[in-house]
């Protein structure tokens, strides 16, 4: 059900309010601060905290970024996903403005932060979170010019991610595919599950309002066109598109058509669950010699083709974190 945030807080690592914005007048900063400091003390490790906490009639939702917490407070049954995601988008906006989002950069730019908080949310409803367009009419001191005459059309336009009148002498488009492989292995070395999450990263430097189209070797599409898929087609389990892509069109004829934002963005992300052989197979053997001595042997074996070369292999050892004597005997790497 609809429902909106009562207030938005930016807090430091100890839980003190740095800057906050009241949208509905039914939650005070003192109240929120008292709750949050108590919560941080009680919970200890911030990574393990439930991001949604109910206290005294108010629901707090928060995320952490560097040494800053971003938190919404709400008294209504609001769209939790929307608000949590909004906090993430806000981080992006702040990063676009200040390069790094941390306590210092917020203080250094507090006036702009206030202006942004006024613009990105109205009456507790998320409004507009495209950093690039926002910076056309909310500017930091260094870039500030006198009164902008009007809000950019993009704010209320159907194409809300691109401004009009962009010009390039040389029109260029770059496409990158970045895939990450997730594999779940049990302690016997058996692969339980594997999937690939990929992103089509695009970088566009195009003039005007260009209409772009992209084809995929997607099995469903190829079959629809009557072209037999010869080993090269893939089955994508799920595809997510950037908001510039016309979803209805894709649903109809599997064409990806869009007017791209200017600069870098993720055109689409996808997931396919297939059997993937891990590029490097790691085995660990744990041997316990005494109460205080444990020997861990780790073997790493490459499994890719000989003619390939892999760069920047990084081994992360998982230190025995937070293991007390009782659990120590149980710990398996």
């Amino acid at each position, binding site marked *: 059900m609809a*429902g909106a945030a009562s207030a938005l807080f930016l807090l430091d690592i100890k839980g003190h309010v740095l800057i906050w914005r009241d949208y509905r007048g039914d939650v005070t900063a003192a109240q929120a601060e008292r709750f949050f400091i108590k919560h941080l003390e009680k919970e200890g490790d911030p990574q393990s905290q439930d991001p949604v906490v109910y206290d005294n009639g108010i*629901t707090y939702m928060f995320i952490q970024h560097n040494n800053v917490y971003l938190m919404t407070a709400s008294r209504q049954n609001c769209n939790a*996903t929307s608000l949590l*995601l909004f906090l993430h988008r806000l981080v992006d906006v702040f990063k676009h403005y*200040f390069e790094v989002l941390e306590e210092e950069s917020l*203080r250094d730019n507090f006036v702009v932060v206030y202006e942004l908080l006024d613009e990105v949310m109205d009456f507790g409803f998320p409004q507009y979170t495209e950093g690039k367009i926002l*910076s056309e009419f909310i500017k930091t001191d260094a870039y500030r010019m*006198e009164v902008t005459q009007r809000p950019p059309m993009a704010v209320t336009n159907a194409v809300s991610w691109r401004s009009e009148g962009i010009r390039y002498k040389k029109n260029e488009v770059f496409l990158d595919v970045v895939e990450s492989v997730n594999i779940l292995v049990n302690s016997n070395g058996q692969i339980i599950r594997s999937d690939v999450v990929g992103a089509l990263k695009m970088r566009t430097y195009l003039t005007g309002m260009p209409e772009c189209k992209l084809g995929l070797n997607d099995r469903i599409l190829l079959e629809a066109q009557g072209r037999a898929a010869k080993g090269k087609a893939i089955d994508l389990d799920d595809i*997510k598109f950037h908001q510039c892509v016309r979803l209805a069109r894709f649903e109809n004829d599997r064409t990806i058509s869009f007017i791209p934002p200017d600069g870098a963005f993720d055109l689409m992300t996808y997931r396919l669950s297939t059997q993937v052989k891990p590029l490097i197979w790691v085995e660990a053997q744990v041997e316990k010699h005494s109460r205080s001595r444990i020997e861990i042997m780790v073997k790493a074996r490459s499994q890719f083709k000989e003619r390939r070369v892999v760069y920047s292999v990084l081994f992360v050892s998982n230190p025995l974190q937070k293991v007390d004597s009782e659990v120590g005997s149980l710990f398996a790497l």
Partner: protein
Amino acid sequence: MSGGADAKLFARGKVAELKIELESGGKKDKNHSAKKIALKKIVANMTMNNNDMILLFPDVLNQMAIPSLDIKKMCFLYLVNYARIKPEIALKALPVLLNDLEDGNPLIRALALRTISYVHVREFVEASVAPTRKLLKDNDAYVRKTACYCVAKLYDHDRITVENSNLIDLLNNMLRDENPTVVSSALASLTDMWQRNDNIKLTIEYDSASKVVQILPDCNEWGQTYILEALMNYVPQNTNEATLLAERIAPRLSHTNSAVVLTCIRVLLYLFNYIADSKVIDGLCAKLSPPLVTLLSKGPEIQYLALRNALLILQRRPDILRNDIRVFFCKYNDPIYVKVTKLEIIFMLATEKNIREVLNELREYSTEIDVHFVRKSVRAIGKLAIKIENAAKPCIDTLLELVATKVTYIVQEATVVIRNIFRKYPNKYESVISTLCEHLDSLDEPEAKAAMVWIIGEYADRIENSNELLDDFLFTFKEETYEVQLALLTATVKLFIQRPTKGAEIVQKVLKWATEESDHPDLRERGFFYWRLLSYPDTTVAKKVVMCEKPTITAESEKLDAVTLEEMCLNVGTLATVYLKPVQQVFRHARPRRLQESPALQRRASSAQLAVGRPGPLAVDVNGQHGAAVGVGHPGQANLAAAVDAADEYFAGVGPQSMANLRVGDDNLMSPVGGAGEQGGMIVNAYSPQHAAPRGTPHQNDDLLL
């Protein structure tokens, strides 16, 4: 972009100095830079909660008319912050704001409108009605969008004023605006008002629903969620309408914004209620699974929300994720709140087919380092034994393996769940008792102790040295919690009944403690009751009462009842789904959402479930059982029966629910405690000795499951 360097302004300022700074500059200060810095200092102090800044109110207001957007914004911020504390001074800002509402720059018009409507002062509210009316028709979409929200804000401040104006009608007209963003804003504003007042009706006809779905792709991501949420107020009048709309919004499932995806899932689940053709529903259901799984590869917070909602969707539409149990297996670095929710889902999806895989997984969780999570995993294994009969054996084997680790909290947790397994499958797995007995010394938590004591009492005749084991526990009887004391009392009585010679000595000791030395009413009452029961010449009576057949337990108690589930499904993605509690239990003023009647509304086949879910009939059931037990031939039966009758008469005027409870309470005092206590978990009751005996669902389980 480069950043500023204003952190240095965060120094506690003195009012007098700031006042001078604010007035300085004069004509030489061309860009008002001196004033700007002074204002920044004031805002910084305001941020630090330096309430002396209120004293500068008139001085700040004097700067408002300066034609500089920066200065204006800071002044407005100051105004919104302090207006409620000094409303009489704030009034001076009103003319400037009203003037700005007419400004040629849409940015300033919108800014002024946003500001004026944030000020909760009567004069401001009254003064902004007319301009809002005008700006709803502004030629700039950005201003119209702001005006839409303004109506909801004014409604929040002063319901009557808004209702007496034509603002709501005008807002309704905004749904016909040419700009999609404005339409979505109007819908957000209307839904907001709808939620706060039961008198506001928000009905969307098919034509309008169809129109807003049309503009869906032209809104930004947040606007799309507002439109989708508003669609929850559309009641399909026939199956075709619902199907058509569902198919038109389904492409949103491919949106990159998870909020759009989850809200779309909510609307689809809602529309399913109005679609007759199950093939259509199956087709659409198949589209829901992949996006839900994809949400699990997002950041932990979003994953968590997706999982909470998956818990719901699974109960309502089990086919959606049926084959995907592996995607819910925990990653070692998942945050604990994600792991715990995944565990609940794994439990729900476990079937006879995948039980091996599930047990392997749970066994690994049971050796993790987070104690809380380990306990839940062990508990889940025990509950699986109860849920799936054919899986009981492998579950017990796994539990015994875990007991062999000798880690105290694992042993204790396992003891508790094995007790429950005994309850569910009596006389089947007693062979494991000896293994459990080896670990008696590691039990130090009341719940585990009580569980072990129950097992010993229940199988006193089969455990060779049961009297010695109990005697060991009795050594610390007086220091134990009441929970354990009650369990010990019942167990010794059971021992005595099964092995009179071995138990005679200790049962007297315990009865004496319970009746003479304890200050706990339940313990004393029960002590007296046993005493009398045991002194009754016919010993078979005591045996019949104490060793009676126990009501069976199930593991399904964690499922939501049908009414709550239906409500939850109408709220997918909202906070209520995180708490998994009926909306009004958490948000007292929230307006509940129910499925609206329509010719297309599909009746659920399982409506019979509704009745079972409610406590009413169940309480009566319990009552009946107890009545039977009492009839066994208690000495004071006639008198008691008369008393019960009298009580019945007295409570005839009381509502059926509370009466049933009271009667259960009465009966409990004289009913077989060994059996009666178990039912107590279902009914909140002051009298029933809830801690007396093992309960079907251990009470740590208040949070839905495990």
